């Protein structure tokens, strides 16, 4: 599973045998359902509290308990937080994978091994430390039943010793993790201490790696993309959430429901200012959203690949009858059921043109957790403004892993924009209301909501051919004109959707385009390309479809142009080739599609050619 990687940039000094600070990857192999997650979060947070940028990637099976699961923590002073294939330290707790996990290590890597697995060690080129976890936990935790829950915290203590992680930070992280649960705090601290003490007494510090206090994480938060999306949906004024559970999107909904329950009761009555409906399937979810959107609610659903497929028919109704709707697609590895717990960007082209017949949809593509939050609000706004379906294209890496981020920008002041809705009073002022007339020339018509007490308000919504006044029509001209107006509306969407983020480097001849969760790996890859390969690069990150004209200009400007994406079929490249046929031949693809979060080195290899293993 590990990609062949050169030494990371900031560690060049290690070759001179000097210590490397604040740059390490710790890979932890445990068992699903064994409660290792809290130990891993404590570790993550302890490093973060020291002021060191850190990320945590959870690689878990599509299963509830008993199968192998991995957690990879990367601490990096420079903020390179993408997945890095080669681990510095392996924590091997799972007999089912310890051998394979060790086999993947680079020579010289360190292994912290549960001593009962000692017999699995076959390599001699690793620094293996067998730790008596069972004995230590027995000592630290008198209650037999609780031992399973705290055994993993022992390796936090061991690592704290090895890497010189601030024990105060560990203690604080434990308190944070078990906020309010005193006995749990005590127990976990005892376990961490036990690990630390044992290590201190039996092991030297790590020969090359250390953590030391820094100041790069002040006021920053650690959050999962799905949590961020939920916060955006909360502050975006979602009134109807309809969903059907599916990994990895469920936690968008579950987080939002938690937030709803806490923050969205009417103060006067205690009643809910939202409806959260668990549907019987995805067709129902999107049906509820369309029914609610038609009736005027800000309605959203979240799903993943299989759900997107099931929503195809309704997506066309939203497009053609012009009913606002938001779908959050937290992409997982497809096709078919695929790998429900692995990440991918394989729905981009699918969502873009979801449904039969001519139709295309607006896609917002967050590249970080802060954008998950912002674009969730934006999606709700655009759906109502454009009266159409808007996708928020997240993915499992972004959605379910732990990301460091600046605190989010509070929502804008003032009333939430609700688009071109004519209420009873507004209808008084117009001579005539025609639902599908392009009054403003932007392709966006006006609408009214059921329940509007004005004789002009009523109209009939249909997925069949219609005239500007919404009356049924099979007439050829009516049909074509309406389709042309919808194309015009899509051009308006092009203007309203978030523009790309462009970082142009003077003198660069290579341009990189990417989107979504590839962002940190691209950033790191650019650094490597610049420093190691003397290849400065410019970078454009797409944040929405339809494509912004700035993308065209960017492509035109560079001699070599690489589009990095996480799917086999170069889906975004295909979309851009169709948009810019005159530039199509320029676009080279760098593709990653094995289910792991993308890493910088594969991008570097894709652009500079593969690096030889030393």
């Amino acid at each position, binding site marked *: 599973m590990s990609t062949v990687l050169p030494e990371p940039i900031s560690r060049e000094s290690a070759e001179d045998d000097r210590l490397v600070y604040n740059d390490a990857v710790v890979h932890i192999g445990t068992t699903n359902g064994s409660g290792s997650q809290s130990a891993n979060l404590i570790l993550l947070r302890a490093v973060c509290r020291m002021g060191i940028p850190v990320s945590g990637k959870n690689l878990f099976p599509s299963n509830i308990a008993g199968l192998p699961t991995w957690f990879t923590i990367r601490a990096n002073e420079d903020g390179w937080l993408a997945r890095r294939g080669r681990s510095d330290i392996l924590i091997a707790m799972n007999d089912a994978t310890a051998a394979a996990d060790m086999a993947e290590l680079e020579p010289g890597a360190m292994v912290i091994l549960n001593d009962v697995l000692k017999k699995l060690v076959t390599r001699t080129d690793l620094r293996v430390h067998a730790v008596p976890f069972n004995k230590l936990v027995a000592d630290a935790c008198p209650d037999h039943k609780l031992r399973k829950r705290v055994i993993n915290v022992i390796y936090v203590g061991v690592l704290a010793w090895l890497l010189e992680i601030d024990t105060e930070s560990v203690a604080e992280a434990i308190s944070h993790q078990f906020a309010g649960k005193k006995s749990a705090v005590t127990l976990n601290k005892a376990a961490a201490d036990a690990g630390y003490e044992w290590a201190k007494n039996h092991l030297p510090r790590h020969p090359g790696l250390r953590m030391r206090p820094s100041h790069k994480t002040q006021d920053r938060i650690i959050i999962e993309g799905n949590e961020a999306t939920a916060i955006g949906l909360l502050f975006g004024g979602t009134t*109807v959430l309809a969903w059907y559970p599916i990994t990895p999107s469920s936690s968008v909904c579950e987080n939002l429901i938690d937030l709803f329950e806490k*923050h969205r009761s009417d103060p006067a009555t205690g009643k809910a200012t939202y409806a959260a409906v668990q549907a019987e399937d995805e067709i129902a979810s999107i*049906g509820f959203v369309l029914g609610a959107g038609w*009736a005027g609610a800000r309605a959203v659903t979240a799903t993943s690949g299989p759900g997107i497929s099931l929503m195809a028919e309704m997506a066309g109704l939203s497009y053609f009858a012009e009913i606002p709707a938001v779908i959050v697609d937290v992409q997982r590895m497809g096709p078919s059921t695929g790998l429900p717990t692995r990440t991918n960007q394989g729905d981009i082209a699918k969502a873009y043109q979801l449904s039969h017949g001519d139709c295309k949809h607006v896609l917002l593509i967050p590249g970080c957790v802060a954008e998950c939050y912002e674009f969730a609000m934006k999606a709700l706004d655009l759906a109502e403004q454009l009266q159409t379906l808007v996708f928020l294209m997240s993915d499992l890496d972004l959605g379910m892993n732990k990301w460091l981020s600046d605190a989010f920008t509070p929502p804008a002041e003032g009333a939430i924009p609700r688009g071109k809705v004519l209420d009873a009073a507004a209808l008084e002022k117009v001579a005539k209301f025609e639902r599908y007339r392009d009054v403003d020339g932007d392709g966006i018509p006006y609408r009214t909501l059921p329940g509007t007490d004005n004789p002009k308000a009523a109209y009939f919504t249909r997925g069949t051919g219609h005239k500007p006044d919404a009356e049924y029509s099979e007439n050829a001209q009516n049909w074509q004109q309406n389709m042309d107006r919808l194309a015009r509306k899509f051009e308006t969407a092009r203007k309203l959707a978030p523009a790309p983020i462009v970082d142009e480097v003077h003198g660069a001849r290579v341009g990189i385009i990417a989107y979504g969760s590839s962002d940190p790996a691209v950033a790191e890859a650019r650094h490597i390309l610049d420093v190691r390969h003397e290849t400065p690069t410019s970078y454009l990150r797409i944040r929405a479809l339809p494509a912004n004209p700035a993308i065209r200009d960017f492509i035109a400007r560079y001699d070599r142009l690489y589009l990095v994406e996480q799917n086999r079929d170069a889906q975004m490249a295909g979309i851009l080739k169709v948009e810019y046929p005159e530039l199509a031949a320029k676009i080279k693809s760098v593709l990653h599609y094995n289910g792991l979060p993308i890493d910088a080195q594969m991008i570097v290899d894709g652009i500079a050619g593969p690096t030889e293993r030393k």
Partner: protein
Amino acid sequence: MGTTDTAPAPSGKDVLNRAGLKLDDYKGHGSTLCAGCGHDAITSSIIKACYDYGVAPHQVAKLSGIGCSSKTTNYFMDNAHGINSVHGRMSCIATGAHVANRTLLNIGVSGDGDTASIGLGNFLHMVRRNVPIVYFIENNGCYGLTKGQFSATADVGSVKKGGTYVNELPPVDICALAMEMGCGFVARSFSGDTQQVRTLIKAAIAHRGTAVLDIISPCVTFNNHEGSTKSVSYAREHEDPLHELDFIPHFAPILVDYQPGETIVVDMHDGSKVTLKKLHADHDPRNRDRAMLLLHEVQRTGHFYTGLIYYHDETKVFAEELGLVDEPLATLPTEKIRPTRAVFDQIMAGYK
């Protein structure tokens, strides 16, 4: 067809009802269905019942799927919003519309194909949620709009028009399934029994949850031949009303003397009453087990009973179950749907 209607409805079509409207105010576009289609008769009954009841059109949401039957929402109440959605999913659209605006009166029109074939699962789940809706199944035993293929409600022994193919699969009993999902208002009728249909519609409007009206509605073009159990003549000859029905709306109660033992009075949640004068069958729609046994008898014998099969109103409607505010969610102002800056800061702090 033993149903009378003593509701104090405005007597002439130009008389204003309690909403201040005339009968014509409930009309819609001209029908494009085949002349004589059962669906058109139901449309007329909807128009008349809504007029009688004094429904406010702007508060109505007309909902449908796809099919000849589903087209008919365009043929009544032009002053109400309507949506002709996709095949079989009107139940989902209705659920969404209800939670977005719980004050709407949902009138849903579907066909047997729309509801009992493609839409079955979603329909049953809508019933389970007790989404307030007057839900019509205009049941003709076939797919009218796609030219007469058997639907899942075709009776065993039905013969395909102009062919020899005889249906042998048992018909889906929408009423029984709805009851199994806890439906509180289950009726069966015949489009030609306009008096009974109208009375049932008014009662359904008065009902606060899901009201399922399974109305046999002949397709005169594709399923009206000999060998069809859903033809006009078959239905006319075989209809056997369970009771003489009457609807007494809450807004105009009248005193009637009931003969005990002869008349059942069903008290509705809003104060309306449905009276059922016993005919030869002895049926009390408040008894679930009996209602079920009746349906099973029908399944065995094919006997065409019509009337109010089952009624209860103890279940919360979906908006209540969700604990929604009284106003429509759709139009809540920003301050009700966007938490404060303080809340935002608090949430951010939790992630530090």
